[in-house]
């Protein structure tokens, strides 16, 4: 029992760091909050994705046969940590992390051939058609209908909170193909829908801070080839469930929060306070230390999960707390960033104005408050933390 990295892992870590330094140089690094929401890809980002492809590291989590790596969980952990620390561009999770597992598990050979390479090359953007108006955390209440006619389904309905639908080429989508089932989870099918299909309209939903990342999508008599059905008709819920668990892993965001804490300390070390610096203030420092300790615990909890998976077993009960604690910690860090900024948390970050006239107050202030607001979604979307606790109560405590 020890925390040391084995020789092989140390070598791998060195290799990863070298790769990052070469293809994502410090010059390219910076605040990621803003970039996350921009459609266009900066040259530096494009270079990174090309380098990943050339190296064969675009989709590490996939099975090797589909272009993934054969990394051990520890190697994956090292990769996730190092890339998060360097703030490298992240592949859109919808294709690479969420749909791909469904494709290589339940997809037809032809579906795999068409879609997996495109996702791997980050050439095609996907979005997730799950939530619907009136069905938030209660996924199974979905209403969107798909009716067979010839070699197509005709899909009618509406999806909402659809991240990235406004620059997505495809959407993977849950639709109701049978309305006369006993349980609501039955009669649901899993379709791949081309966003260029006639009858699809995307309307932006502005998130606090005028951020455009999610949308509502309306589908009116959209024709979807039967060939775009995943697995069997009416079995979509099974595939989606598997997909949701994939959504959980790595959700603790430990490395990202560690980076944020480091930035917070730097920021506080440059923030004047009564002739000294904010970082020297006992109560502020105390709050940062408290979050860091909680984060240390969460990191070990994640490593324990990793270990039990590596030992061939399934993740233990401790894994269920990763999302709840991870989001709580990230939100507390965001609050501390606002506290550190004082009055300079207040200016509205007009990107154009900033590009022309420079930031108002410290550069760290740009988008900080909007980042905090946006971070509130982490405990709501993807199964609210209240839903998470219901699940733990039932699955782990047997209540």
């Amino acid at each position, binding site marked *: 029992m020890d925390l040391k990295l084995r020789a092989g892992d140390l070598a791998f870590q060195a290799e990863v760091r070298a790769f990052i330094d070469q293809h994502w140089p410090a010059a390219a690094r910076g605040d990621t909050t803003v970039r996350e929401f921009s459609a266009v890809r900066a040259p530096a980002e494009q270079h990174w994705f090309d380098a990943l492809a050339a190296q064969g590291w675009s989709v590490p989590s996939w099975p090797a046969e589909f272009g993934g790596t054969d990394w051990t969980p520890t190697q994956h952990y090292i990769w996730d940590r190092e890339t998060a620390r360097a703030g490298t561009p992240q592949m859109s999770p919808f294709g690479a992390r969420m749909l791909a597992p469904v494709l290589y598990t339940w997809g037809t050979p032809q579906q795999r051939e068409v879609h997996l390479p495109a996702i791997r090359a980050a050439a095609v953007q996907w979005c997730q058609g799950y939530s619907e108006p009136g069905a938030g955390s209660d996924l199974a209440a979905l209403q969107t209908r798909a009716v067979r006619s010839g070699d197509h389904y005709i899909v009618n309905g509406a999806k909402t909170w659809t991240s990235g639908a406004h620059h997505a080429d495809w959407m993977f989508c849950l639709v109701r193909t049978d309305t006369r089932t006993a349980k609501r989870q039955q009669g649901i099918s899993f379709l791949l829908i081309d966003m260029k299909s006639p009858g699809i309209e995307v309307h932006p939903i502005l998130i*606090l801070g*005028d951020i455009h990342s999610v949308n509502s999508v309306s589908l009116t008599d959209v024709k979807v080839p039967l060939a775009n059905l995943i697995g069997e008709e009416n079995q979509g819920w099974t595939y989606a469930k598997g997909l949701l668990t994939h959504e959980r892993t790595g959700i603790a965001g430990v490395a990202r929060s560690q980076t944020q804490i480091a930035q917070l300390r730097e920021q506080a070390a440059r923030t004047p306070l009564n002739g000294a610096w904010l970082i020297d203030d006992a109560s502020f420092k105390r709050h940062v230390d408290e979050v860091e300790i909680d984060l240390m615990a969460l990191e070990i909890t994640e490593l324990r999960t990793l270990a039990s998976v590596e030992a061939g077993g399934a993740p233990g009960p401790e894994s269920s707390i990763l999302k709840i604690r991870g989001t709580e910690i990230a939100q507390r860090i965001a609050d501390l960033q606002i506290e550190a900024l004082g009055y300079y948390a207040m*200016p509205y970050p007009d990107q154009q104005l900033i590009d022309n006239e420079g930031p108002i107050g410290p550069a760290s202030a740009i988008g900080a408050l909007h980042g905090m607001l946006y971070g*509130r979604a982490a405990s709501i979307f993807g199964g609210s933390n209240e839903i998470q606790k219901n699940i733990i109560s039932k699955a782990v405590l047997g209540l």
Partner: protein
Amino acid sequence: MDFSFSDEQGLLKDSVERYVQQEYSFAARQKLVKTERGFGEKNWHTFAELGWLGVPFAEKDGGFGGGPIETMLIMEQFGRALVLEPFVSSVVLVGGMLAAVGKTAQKEKYLAPIIAGTLQGAFAYAEPQGRFNLADLTTTATKSGTGYVLNGHKAVVLNGPNANLLVVSARTSGAQRKTTGITLFLVDANAPGVTRRDYPTVDALRASEVYLENVSVEKSAVLGRVGKGYDVIQQAVDHATMAIGAEAVGCMEVAYKATVEYCKTREQFGQPIGKFQVLQHRMVDMFMEYEQSKSMMFMAAMRLAEGYTPQAQKAVSAFKVQVGKSGRFVGQQAVQLHGGMGMTEELSIGHYFKRLTMIDTMFGNVDFHLKRFGAL
């Protein structure tokens, strides 16, 4: 001991409440946000006509003869509607300092038009290095001839873009954080050497970075006594802190009640989410935070009304601590319980959260006021 309002106070409360209910829907408010000045000139004139802009001032100064209690009543209602008009900047801060230490000539020239709504003020007190310390000033006022020359950079001056009159705190003597040697100056917003960088704030107010380069002012521009500005600033800021605290109480009331209503109607898993015990208790916590904040609001206003004593300062800091904690909790949970909808610009709930977050920062956050409370 008396928690009831006088008849005048009751009438004032009712008229403000009625006005915001009728004229200040969220939709109407969002229209104003998009206008160039960022507030309703028509509203401002009505406020003046109804005498609200004179509420805290003595009759002899052309005011309504009210005080902190009346300011509290107005601001609580303003908070419920997220009112954008610069009542705190122009009336409570600038008006308040003029009323406190202004010479007759200064009152006639500036306070009268403020009450009339024809002139707006902004208070330039904060500086980039100063955080919440009102005495941490690098802006200087150097004697020159019969007047002074001002140089410095004032940070996040609320209502800066709309103000005709700036009150600037500057150092006429003493070291950077000394509480003595601070003097207040009445500066024409368009005076030579005054430049501004205007911007909206995250919560849709308007503010400016104000740069003073060799701005010459006459001796008559001194507000109050030379070198004795600190006490005047503290008193004005404490009244303004109580005012935005009352605004926060109004915000919290709407936020928690809207959440309760939403949870009664929003159905999930086959029942209104308000039937889930965890959410019920969460809303009870929101309700309790609101009530505790409201109690503190009464205390702070009443202490200030008794006179500006250390006990009053302590009550204001305690109120601000309470409002900072409660406002954050109520705002965050209102968004959480509204689910995705709470995250949208379209719904009002997120805007209450934004405002509550900014109020925590304004005039010093929880940590600052906890330390001040402990030191008093």
